[in-house]
């Protein structure tokens, strides 16, 4: 290529890269800026469009104050964090135990059970929300923390992640410990758990994000204020106060910042986790 067309191609490529990055970043950035801006400014800088829409010229926390004062977001955040953390804590134990059994131990029906676990992970949770409503209802658990936590604890993908990780640990040490008379619980706790920080982070993030983002299930199974979670409170806010853009921005920013603060520093584990669940599977 002659220099001029080559420079043109480089320019076109640069524009493409910039446009793609803007597409992914600008909406959330705009929401974050809007959450820190007086409501009038948000509208003023859009009619006509003005770059000050992307910078808080008169920063204020009024929208956040209103969320906590008028819309009980303190309680909502507590509920969401409690449900997510309880799911992670219980889920790590339950799925690690199953992953360990699948990876290391010998028992009849192993293949069939493992395939069943993988198939169950392919069925999308939303498709099962309505029948699940009847199952959880007949257990008398609707509208409680339990209704939100219990169905999310066992997770086929988390079991898969633990199984893959444990299966790669050489069995010689384990066999030596068996000969020395160590029990299975000791082997799991002393030999396997200390090595499993990466898979624990990946599976923990998976369980956390699943719970933090779920919508249809809490919408139908837990709507009373004392168990309401963030995504549902956000939907209610939009439906009841649709003109309060800054409050919607503030609630959206809160809902996005927590997972982002976890995912950006830990993204390598998370990415390895989701890739592990897909490409190999």
């Amino acid at each position, binding site marked *: 290529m002659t220099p001029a067309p080559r420079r043109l191609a480089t320019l076109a490529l640069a524009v*493409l*890269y910039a446009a*793609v*990055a803007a597409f*992914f*970043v600008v*909406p*959330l950035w705009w929401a974050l800026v*809007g959450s820190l801006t007086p409501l009038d400014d948000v509208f003023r800088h*859009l*009619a*006509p*469009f003005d770059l000050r*829409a992307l910078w808080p010229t008169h920063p204020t926390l009024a929208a956040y104050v209103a969320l906590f004062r008028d819309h009980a977001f303190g309680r909502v955040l507590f509920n969401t964090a409690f449900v997510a953390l309880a799911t992670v804590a219980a889920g790590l134990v*339950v799925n690690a*135990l*199953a992953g*360990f*059994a*699948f990876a290391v*131990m*010998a*028992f009849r029906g192993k293949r069939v*059970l493992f395939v069943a*676990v993988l198939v*169950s992970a392919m*069925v*999308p949770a*939303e*498709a*099962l929300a*309505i*029948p*699940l409503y*009847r*199952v959880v209802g007949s257990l008398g658990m609707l509208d409680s923390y339990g209704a939100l936590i*219990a*169905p999310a*604890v*066992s997770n086929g993908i988390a079991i898969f992640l633990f199984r893959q990780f444990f299966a790669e640990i050489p069995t010689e040490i384990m066999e030596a410990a068996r000969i020395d008379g160590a029990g*299975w619980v000791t082997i799991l706790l002393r030999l396997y758990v200390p090595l499993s920080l990466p898979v624990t982070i990946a599976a923990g993030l998976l369980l956390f994000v699943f719970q*933090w983002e779920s*919508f*249809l299930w809490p919408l*139908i199974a837990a709507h009373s204020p004392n168990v309401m979670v963030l*995504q549902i409170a*956000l939907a209610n806010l*939009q439906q009841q106060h649709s003109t309060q853009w800054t409050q*919607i921005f503030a609630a959206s920013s809160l*809902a*996005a910042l927590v*997972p*982002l603060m976890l995912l*950006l520093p830990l*993204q390598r584990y998370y*990415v390895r986790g*989701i*890739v592990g669940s*897909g*490409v190999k599977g």
Partner: protein
Amino acid sequence: MAAPAEQRGPRTGPRRHEERVAYLFLLPALAGLALFRVYPIVEAIAGALYRDVFTSHGPRTVFAGLANFGSLVADPVFWASLWVTLELNLIINPLQVALALGLALMVDRAGRAVRLYRLLVLVPIGVSLPVATLVWRLMLDPNGGFVNALLGRLGIPPQPFYTSAGQALWSIILIANWKGVSYWMVFVLAGLQAIPAELKEAAAIDGAGPLQRFARVTLPLLRGPLLFVLVADTVINFVMFVPMYLLTRGGPSGATNVLMYQAYKVGFAFGDMGQALAIVTVLLALLLGVVTWQFRLFDRGWGRS
């Protein structure tokens, strides 16, 4: 049961003990999956065979055979909803796979700048679909939202976006792409980076141009990741619910009334559980069929070397 066990040798003390401990370790996880993942499928199919009726003794649930499916077949709203579901999926699934591949090719480079760029592109992974929908709702607000303000600067008249039957589905596709494409890109990128550089170099030495190298070397080796992304993406998009609930309420005039939203509406707004479970059953059967077909397609189809 006994015969195959004996073939593997006698079940002496330690082996039987190991097996018992293994089942104990599996019990909590498998019980949870059985109760909350497998049994609801049974509940959907069984519940679709019953119907609530109002008698002089109050409401009762009675066996109705296939009556719920019969009234689905006779309901034009169901057929319209089925078509919207298929239309959405015929567009969005190939589109997201293609865009994820494009984005993966863009960021498949070494260096600090690209690492930072990748981080920016991955921002939507941390944003839930409800948040994405609500932020984009204001971005696309027909009266003075961000996008119309920007279009105004370029001299383009304001668009109705999700408030018009013609643009509502495309608005939802836009939002789902914003949320989804970089997530799926991660899988494609992993596939790209697993391709040995020597293969591409060898093709280059043989005189293959960049396009030929992509079509003959890269694409066939990406078959696995692309199939995974297509199937997993389809499974998610077939039951898409959040944007329909938060943005369009299935409208305008049914333009975004997908089966998942229709099932929710029938079950929880109209209170007809039998009918809602019949729709869920149809949805599950449809999903099984489509996923099986996709696996077949990739098995026979392109790029098998």
